[in-house]
């Protein structure tokens, strides 16, 4: 009885495992090409450059307004 139970348990585990495997087998396709040959970093570099430019501009504007505020007072 006990042995049969053990076998049943192992079999259940196997079925469970196969099911998990089956889920893993069908991966959703992602844009891994860009990532694997490293070109995604180019995109990140471009975005960061643009952002740096915009922030620089914004800080400049901030300074300019501070100066005008001083002049007005």
């Amino acid at each position: 009885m006990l042995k049969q139970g053990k076998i049943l348990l192992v079999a259940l585990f196997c079925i469970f495992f196969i099911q998990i495997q089956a889920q893993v087998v069908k991966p959703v396709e992602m844009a891994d090409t860009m990532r694997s040959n490293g070109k995604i970093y180019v995109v990140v570099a471009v975005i960061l450059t643009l952002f740096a430019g915009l922030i620089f501009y914004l800080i400049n504007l901030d300074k300019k307004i501070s100066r005008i505020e001083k002049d007005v007072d």
Partner: protein
Amino acid sequence: MKLAWWKILSIVLLIYAFVGGLLLPAPARPIVNESIRNLYYHVPMWFGMMVIMTVSVVNAIKYLRNSNLQYDIISAQYGRTGVLLGILGLTTGAIWAKYTWGAPWSNDIKQILAAVALLIYAAYFVLRSSLDDIDKKARVSAVYNIFAYTMLFPTLFIIPRLYDSLHPGGEGNPAISQQDIDPVMRMVFWPAVLGWTLLSVWITTLFIRVQRIKDKNILHA
């Protein structure tokens, strides 16, 4: 000039959102695929808009309590930034929808009502520009601001939940759901929300300061 700490924080968080948002692993889901990363950029527009509009309505109420025109300026400028964020949210949403739902506009309940919410705010600026008397303009628009803010709740939160939406996360009780956002994504999403919100506040403060200089004669009269 020494940059305020929260301005630096905003820059740091946004750099993290750009780098982490593009390079950190994202869950592989059908249909959305890599565009799932739009969550870091599209959704913070709406979260940011809610924060900005809250600041706007709080200042509208402050104006009604003591008729100080300073609050009117703050309220109006935050309202402007909020509408900008809403328009950006709607546009980025349409781009995302084109490639996931098949069309930029599918008359999805959230799309329609987000547009309605923005139109209500658009009327706020029509109202402001139609009144010449400064005090009347401030008072009427403050009252309207409260109405527009109140309308955000049925349009963005309540009614969409009563209908089927193409948007995810509307089912059940989203407040206690732990499965809406993948844990890895949450690590980028929340910093991105804070970063975008702080940047909007920063830009708004510049508009407020310019408006104060412009209205200097009125404010010190």
